């Protein structure tokens, strides 16, 4: 065996002798070894618009990060409101520019901390919330004009949005000017993430209630952030991630229009949440293509007059599926590349999964490291100097055109299966996405899909990597239950009952439930009480689990 590397003879170019490895990206696009102007021309009509001009391929603002860098908004919340408030202040003191609140599973699924269903979950993966009192404590001392708050909640979103608005109102903020967002994308919860409560139709109705209510009462508040993110985590390709998210956003848009709202009254307040793991160029092209496609949908299909109605405003972040238990320090490096992807993609807001999150929710140290990763991009490596720095690359422009086609294909697939609401209710999308997840897992196990530290370069010096992990505080859960009991003893329970009766009656009559939810929230009704009132009318979702068949 010869050991020294051999140099190719000049008359025998390497490419001729060895076949070039075939590369197909996750969205199914064959990637060439070289791109030229001819590829751009062949891939579609070039979009010569400038950033800030429809259809916004290069960015929704003319100056993008030169005007204002992306908002840094790490997903944060644990134990109770008081502990979470301290963590918020720690992150703000370290330069974080937005908040993104994590709630525990009981709160997200509509159970109080003392419910049997909440066993073992109170304050575990996020902050426990039972009543408005928890919101008052969580945001105490935080200027809600200076820092915007994003609530990551879906099944119980109508209730938690009301809590946020009520809390801000009581602190003297003008709700008509209050900014902030809620995730409130229930359709994707049925596909991935799983914090649904009510059946599909009333769930979509509730989303429309929040859009309508906010358009009238809190027009600067973003009531919905449509998530391709979790659909991708669940197995979808990058193109499907964006295509399915657009189908979902259109379903909410249609529901809001059916209330008699004008498209320009609310479309500009819809925002999006996308994933950042995977091939860098494919993701950047996904964001550019997505911006262009969404702008066209809102302009051409819905006839919006205001260009900002078609802005694909997005948080691009996370990357959870890309992170590994194995060799966890590699996740620090992955996080840095993922942040680069989000910045090159023109995200308005960024959040990173922390290196310890393949294990559990992050420690303050890990969160600060993610924050520093984003700050490095702004302060040291020039990512905020120039708009859309990859624009004009033959490769990226070609891929952008091709990704747009793939996004349109994914949307057509959904339409061919009866539309997103039907496809979700029947589990068709869930089946498709989980088949892909299975294939992805097999590819990881066979080595067809390479994962550093997992199926290649997996020799590790230490058997058990010594990662400091966030501990779960069981005493905190007990304290939360105690303060809930105290609050129930203090509040006017007759008033609570009256507001819950109104809520039930409004839900029964098909009225917008938000005014009644607001009244119940202000009377310190609990998340569980309000959810049960709605369940009395709407019932629970029954998950379609009978569709299982073998992948061919």
């Amino acid at each position: 065996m010869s050991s020294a590397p051999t140099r190719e003879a000049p008359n025998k170019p390497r490419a001729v002798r060895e076949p070039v490895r075939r590369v197909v990206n996750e969205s199914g696009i064959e990637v060439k070894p070289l791109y030229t102007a001819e590829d751009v021309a062949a891939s579609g009509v070039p979009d010569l618009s400038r950033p800030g001009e429809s259809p916004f391929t290069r960015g929704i603002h003319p100056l993008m990060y030169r005007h204002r860098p992306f908002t840094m908004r790490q997903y944060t919340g644990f134990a109770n409101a008081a502990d979470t408030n301290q963590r918020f202040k720690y992150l703000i003191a370290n330069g974080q520019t937005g908040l993104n609140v994590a709630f525990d599973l009981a709160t997200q699924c509509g159970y109080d901390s003392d419910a049997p269903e909440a066993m073992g979950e109170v304050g575990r993966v996020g902050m426990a919330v039972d009543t408005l009192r928890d919101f008052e404590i969580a945001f105490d001392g935080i200027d809600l004009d200076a820092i915007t708050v994003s609530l990551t909640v879906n099944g119980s979103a109508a209730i938690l949005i009301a809590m946020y608005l009520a809390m801000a109102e009581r602190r003297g903020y003008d709700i008509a000017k209050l900014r902030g967002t809620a995730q409130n994308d229930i359709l994707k919860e049925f596909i991935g993430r799983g914090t649904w409560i009510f059946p599909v139709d009333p769930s979509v109705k509730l989303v429309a209630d929040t859009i309508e209510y906010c358009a009238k009462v809190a027009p600067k508040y973003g009531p919905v952030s449509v998530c391709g993110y979790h659909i991708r985590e669940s197995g979808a390709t990058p193109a499907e991630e964006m295509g399915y998210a657009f189908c979902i956003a259109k379903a909410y848009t249609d529901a809001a229009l059916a209330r008699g709202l004008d498209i320009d009254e609310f479309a500009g307040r819809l925002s999006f949440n996308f994933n950042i793991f995977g091939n860098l160029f494919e993701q950047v092209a996904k964001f550019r293509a997505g911006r262009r496609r969404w702008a066209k949908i809102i302009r051409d299909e819905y006839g919006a007059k205001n260009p900002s109605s078609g802005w694909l405003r997005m948080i691009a972040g996370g990357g959870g599926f890309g992170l590994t238990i194995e060799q966890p320090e590699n996740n620090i490096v992955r996080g840095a590349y993922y942040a680069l992807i989000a910045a090159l993609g023109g995200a308005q807001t960024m959040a990173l999964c922390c290196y310890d999150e393949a294990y559990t929710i992050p420690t303050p140290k890990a969160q600060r490291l993610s924050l520093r990763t984003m700050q490095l991009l702004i302060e040291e490596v020039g990512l905020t100097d120039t708009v859309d720095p990859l624009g004009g690359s033959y490769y990226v422009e070609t891929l952008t055109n091709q990704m747009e086609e793939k996004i349109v294909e994914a949307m057509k697939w959904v339409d061919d299966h009866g539309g997103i609401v039907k496809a979700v209710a029947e589990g068709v999308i869930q089946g498709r996405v989980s088949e892909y997840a299975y294939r992805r897992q097999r590819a990881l196990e066979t080595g067809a899909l390479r994962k550093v530290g997992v199926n290649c370069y997996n020799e590790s010096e230490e058997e058990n990597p010594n990662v400091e992990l966030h501990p779960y505080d069981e005493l905190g859960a007990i304290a939360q239950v105690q303060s809930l009991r105290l609050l129930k003893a203090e509040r006017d329970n007759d008033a609570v009952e009256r507001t819950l009766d109104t809520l039930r009656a409004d839900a029964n009559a098909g009225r917008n439930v938000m005014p009644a939810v607001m009244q119940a929230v202000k009377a310190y009704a609990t998340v569980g009480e309000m959810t049960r009132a709605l369940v009395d009318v709407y019932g629970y979702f029954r998950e379609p689990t009978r569709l299982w068949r073998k992948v061919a």
Partner: protein
Amino acid sequence: MSQRQIRVLLAKPGLDGHDVGAKVVVQALLQAGFDVIYTGLRQTPEAIVRAAREADVDVIGLSILSGSHIPLCRRLRDLMFDQALHDKLWIVGGNIPEADRMVLKQLGYRGVFPTGSRTDDIVSFIRENVR
């Protein structure tokens, strides 16, 4: 051992919504020729035990990624003993730290498969351990 097809109940107890892994395992078990019943999300321990009895399964598999595996597995262990399911093969997968794996084995969960486990290993473990 009889030639009856191995029957597995795969359940998601508690409020955890992470079901990618559970569904991947369902697929892998189906491919391996097992008869698989998947409960879907948000199952109470009582409902899981009832389903296991009704379907007369050989294997009861749990998937928990929220971190609440110890309290849930403890509660399920008690119920499974009460309902005479102690002779079935109990396995659990999910986000399970090193320190908790021995606790779960002591509770009677013979197979513990943390995040990153290979589906082939789960299949062979079941084949080798079903009585």
